[in-house]
Structures are given as structure tokens and as C-alpha cells.
């Protein structure tokens, strides 16, 4: 049974225009460590939460009545977590996190609650959860311990293009469509800032395909309204060194299917 609770500390976002990002409990908090006052310590998603907040601040600076903001919801994906609702709410408010809503669901129904809340991006530390969500048409990305060292003044989104992923194999038509819609919204947000000093940066990394593969990626993103800032074509070279320089907050790949940190 899913329940949704608003966070009264945070101003609610416009439902139609906000870009809803769901982050799991295990990503937001370090679930193992709980100090005496029933407050969880923060987990790997902290820089991401900070940077999404930063983008919102910059958007409001540009336009004080901006509605196309990031709306962050915290979602539980296990029954055990679902039962800790009051600790979760307390911890969130204690740390002053800009979480708009809480979704208390279990492993059986969290996908449903993603759909109910019109989630456009689902962030988790669990690969299985990411896969399940993608298969049901919700774009997902994996967060890991590397995410903890990402910058918090610029949201770095890296799109990984790998010629080995077949466009239609892993993702259904619906998930491809929702991935495109999410990218389009991000593109719209990016457009609100100039070339320099943008709080959001789009990068393409083409791993195996050659320059023509990168070329068609640039063109198809442009048709979605996404202007790419940086492009790296690796020609088969390993991704690791480049990614450690880029320090993405999250990696999105072709169909937003199986991803790595």
C-alpha cells in the first residue's frame, strides 16, 4: 500500500511543469548508520541533491516565477523502509533536504508509485531496481560511491553511447519515449542559461562507435532540443579515464537501460 506524504518544510512544485526526480531511501541516507537521535546520516546522493537544488536556485534567479524546476521525491523500495516513515521524515527535515514528497512503498509496488507520481527520472543504488523501472518505462540511472565525489555547483549529465546496445533490444517503445521526453525537458532547462557558467552541462561519450555514431547522436539530440556542451568520441578506448575526469552525477545510456556508475 503506497502512501505519499508532502514535506511541509518545502514549497510544493507545479505538478505539470516540474521535472520529477525520485531518489531511493538507500541513496539518500546511509541506512546502516543511525545515530542516537533517530536521524540517519546522508548517503551517496548528497552531491546530487545539492546540485539539483543549485539548478533550481539558478532557474529562479533567471525567472522568479519559473515552474520548470526539479521536484525531488524520496521513495522507499522495501517494506522495512516503508515502516520507518517517521524517522525518514525527521531525518530529511533535520538535514534540510529539498525533498518535496515522500513515497512510502515496498518492493512490490514502488514501480506503481513511480508512475503515480509522474516520475521522469528514477535514481537508485540498486541495479535491479533500475532495470525493473526501465523495463516499465521509467528512465533510471545508477548512483554509486563515485557519485559522492561529484561537484555540487554544476549538474553534469553524461549520455553514454555504446554501439553494442541495440536501440530496441532492452527498451520498450514506452521507455524510449519517456527517455526522450526527459531529455527534452533537460534540454529546455539548459536553454535557459548561456554558454558559460551554466549550472547544467550535457556531455556525450561515444564509446565504441566512431565519429559518425557521435555525429548522429548530436543530431538526434539536437532534434529533441538538447544542445550538447561537450562531446568525446573514444574509438574503442576504455571509458574509465575519461569518466573520472568528467565526474558525471549520473550516466544515461541509449535506452536508459543497464548502467554503471
Amino acid at each position, binding site marked *: 500500500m503506497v502512501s505519499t506524504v508532502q514535506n511541509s518544510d518545502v514549497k510544493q512544485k507545479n505538478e505539470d511543469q516540474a521535472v520529477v526526480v525520485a531518489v531511493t531511501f538507500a541513496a539518500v541516507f546511509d541506512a546502516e548508520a543511525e545515530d542516537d537521535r533517530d536521524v540517519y546520516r546522508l548517503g551517496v546522493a548528497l552531491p546530487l541533491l545539492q546540485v539539483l537544488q543549485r539548478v533550481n536556485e539558478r532557474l529562479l534567479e533567471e525567472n522568479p516565477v519559473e515552474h520548470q524546476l526539479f521536484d525531488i521525491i524520496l521513495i522507499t523500495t522495501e517494506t522495512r523502509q516503508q515502516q520507518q516513515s517517521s524517522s525518514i521524515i525527521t531525518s530529511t527535515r533535520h538535514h534540510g533536504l529539498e525533498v518535496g514528497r515522500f513515497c512510502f512503498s515496498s518492493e512490490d509496488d514502488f514501480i506503481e508509485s513511480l508512475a503515480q507520481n509522474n516520475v521522469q527520472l528514477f535514481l537508485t543504488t540498486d541495479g535491479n531496481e533500475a532495470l525493473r523501472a526501465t523495463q516499465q518505462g521509467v528512465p533510471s540511472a545508477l548512483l554509486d560511491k563515485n557519485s559522492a565525489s561529484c561537484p555540487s555547483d554544476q549538474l553534469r549529465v553524461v549520455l553514454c553511447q555504446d554501439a553494442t546496445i541495440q536501440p530496441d533490444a532492452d527498451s520498450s517503445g514506452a521507455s524510449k519515449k519517456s527517455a526522450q521526453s526527459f531529455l527534452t525537458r533537460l534540454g529546455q532547462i539548459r536553454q535557459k542559461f*548561456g*554558454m*558559460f557558467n551554466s549550472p547544467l*552541462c550535457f*556531455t*556525450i561519450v561515444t564509446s565504441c562507435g*566512431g*565519429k*559518425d555514431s*557521435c*555525429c548522429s547522436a*548530436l*543530431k538526434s539530440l539536437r532534434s529533441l532540443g538538447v*544542445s*550538447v*556542451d*561537450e*562531446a*568525446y*568520441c*573514444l*574509438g*574503442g*578506448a576504455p571509458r574509465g*579515464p*575519461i569518466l573520472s*575526469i568528467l565526474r558525471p552525477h549520473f550516466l544515461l545510456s541509449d535506452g536508459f537501460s543497464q548502467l554503471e556508475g
Partner: protein
Amino acid sequence: MSLNNSQTLTISGQDVVKNGSQHSLEDANTLLKPSTPSKKPPKPENSITIAVSSRVLFNMEKEQQIFEQQGMEEYIKYQVEHETEPFSPGPAFSFVKALEAVNTQLRDLYPESEELFDVVLITNNHAYVGLRLINTINHHQLFIERFCMTGGNSPIGYLKAYNTNLYLSSDPVKVHEALGEGIAAATMFTPDKMTEVSETQLRVAFDGDAVLFSDESEQIYKAHGLDKFFEHEKAHENKPLDHGPLKGFLEVLGKLQKKFYAKGQRMDCPIRTYLVTARSAASSGARALKTLRLWGLEIDEALFLAGAPKGPILEKIRPHIFFDDQMFHVEGAAEMGTVACHVPYGIAQRVPEKKGLKDKEVSSIK
């Protein structure tokens, strides 16, 4: 060079004639095979990575002007509007083409080997300009499958990530940064006219002090004058000089040359290297040659100019690229149509040169 010529010259070491005739038979068979349609770029750890910026590979003068006079937005707008118009070649273009020619010959001789040149485009440009650059690469049929468009971020991290052996840019600040990180780098200038260069043989010319060698001797000259310099070099003839920023690049060229020698191609090797130095053959030259020998490096031709200008001799050699640490020589070379690059290393960058003095004795040591 025809086979006849090579047979009459004295070669130390291998029997060229025997290998040569075997080689030409193999060669004929290889040439009849159709070339592989999709060549994969080599793995970075195996290949020799040459990183070039967009402005040295292509002529982007007009666009650069727009950027300087009208700003970034206009520059991007112009680039996107002209996306399908390829840029014309820049000063590094013929060098890159020559690298590809060497690769073709290496692939013929060693089809399984990944010890090849790998040209990477590393540019500060935003990905907006990316399509025009990719279109241009395709138009000129360049084999460049790796690039970084850093959108304004420093390229240095990427240079290191790709194990870059040589970085060429038109921006002296980036070149300086690269040298500071131990990467061989040089600022490339566009000569007003570019003399024709070979399409089959790669020719690379190096200055000696502060390029292949350290600037230790140069420091002596600057501090104590020419006589002291000659004295010092003679006295230390048998003590090798310390290495300079481009020594590693000469080394990798030598490695590839040996691969050609192993297949009998010593006389018509597709790679030829030159030392063009103001040292004099009579005195200070010996130390330079002995140092190279101690390092196990060969240089095909050593030209000791004893202070004479380098432009005319380079015009005869026709290298695809020439490296020098002193702008005076870079400019002199460029004036006569050689693609010359400045290596901003060593004492010459801090002490102003004594330019324009005719007297050989007091003219700059290089």
C-alpha cells in the same frame, strides 16, 4: 629512392639487397589485397598518440576573427550556419596526412600490429561546432576516430588519459600547461605560404638545445657568453646532456623506423628525422651527437649551422614539422614556408634574445 641507388651505398648491418628483393615480392602480394574497409583505431597504450587542436588541423582564421570581434554567441551561430561547409587544411594537415601514409605502410608490413600513429582531435570548442568538425574530417578523408570537444574545459586531463605522445595547438597557454605536465607539446604557427612536402615520407626536424636536450648549455651561453659555451661543451664532450621535452617523441619515431629497417627499408624509410642546430660541427656538435648515441637514438641527418639562419636549410629539407625553442628561429623558418612550432621550454623563454645582430660570434646560440 630507387632500388639501384640503395644498392650502391654502403650500409652497415643488414644485407639490404637480399631483404629488399624478398620484401618487394611480399609487398606486391600485399598491395593486391583490397584495403580493409573499416580500420579500427589502435588501443591508446599501444599506439603513438598525436593530439592536435582544431585550429592547427584546419584553417579557422575567419571563425577565430568572428570569435574575437563579435563574441562566442556569434561564433557558434556562424559555425552552425556553415555546418556543411568543410574547413580548409591548416598547418598540421600535411603532417597528419604524412602520419597516415606511414600507418598505411606499417599496416602493410605488420598487419597485426597496433604500433601505429593515432591522431586525436582535442579542442576547446563546444560540441555545437562538433558537427562541422566531423563533416570536415570526413570531407578530407582523414582517419580520426577519437576526439574530445571539451566545451571550454582544459584539455590537459584528456591528454594524459590518452597517453599523448605529442600535443600540437595554436594556444601557447595550453602548450605551456602540457609541457608542465611532462607532455611533449609545441605551439604551431601558420606560415604565409606552405612549401610542398612529401606525401609518402614523414620528415620531422628538431632543434637540439631545449628541445631534444635540456637547456643546461643554453643557460651557460646566456650567463657567460659564446666563448664560455664552446669551452664548456668541449670540456664536457663525453658527459651526456640531460633530456629535453621532445626527446620522447624522437624516441618513438626511432622505434617505428626500426620496424621499417627490419623489413629492409632503411634507405627509403618512410620516416626521416633531422637535427637542425646552431651548434658547430667543429666544437659543440660532438657533445650533441654523443648524447644521442648514448641514448640509443639515431637521427638521420644532423645539420650544424654554427649560428647561421635555419630558414634556408629547412626550405631544402622540407620537413612536415620543425620544433625550436626560440621564436626567432620559428619565425625564420615560417618565413620560408616551413611549418614551424615553438616549444616554450627553458631559459630562452625568460631571457630576451639578441635579435638582428649580424656578427656570428654574438648571435644567439641557436
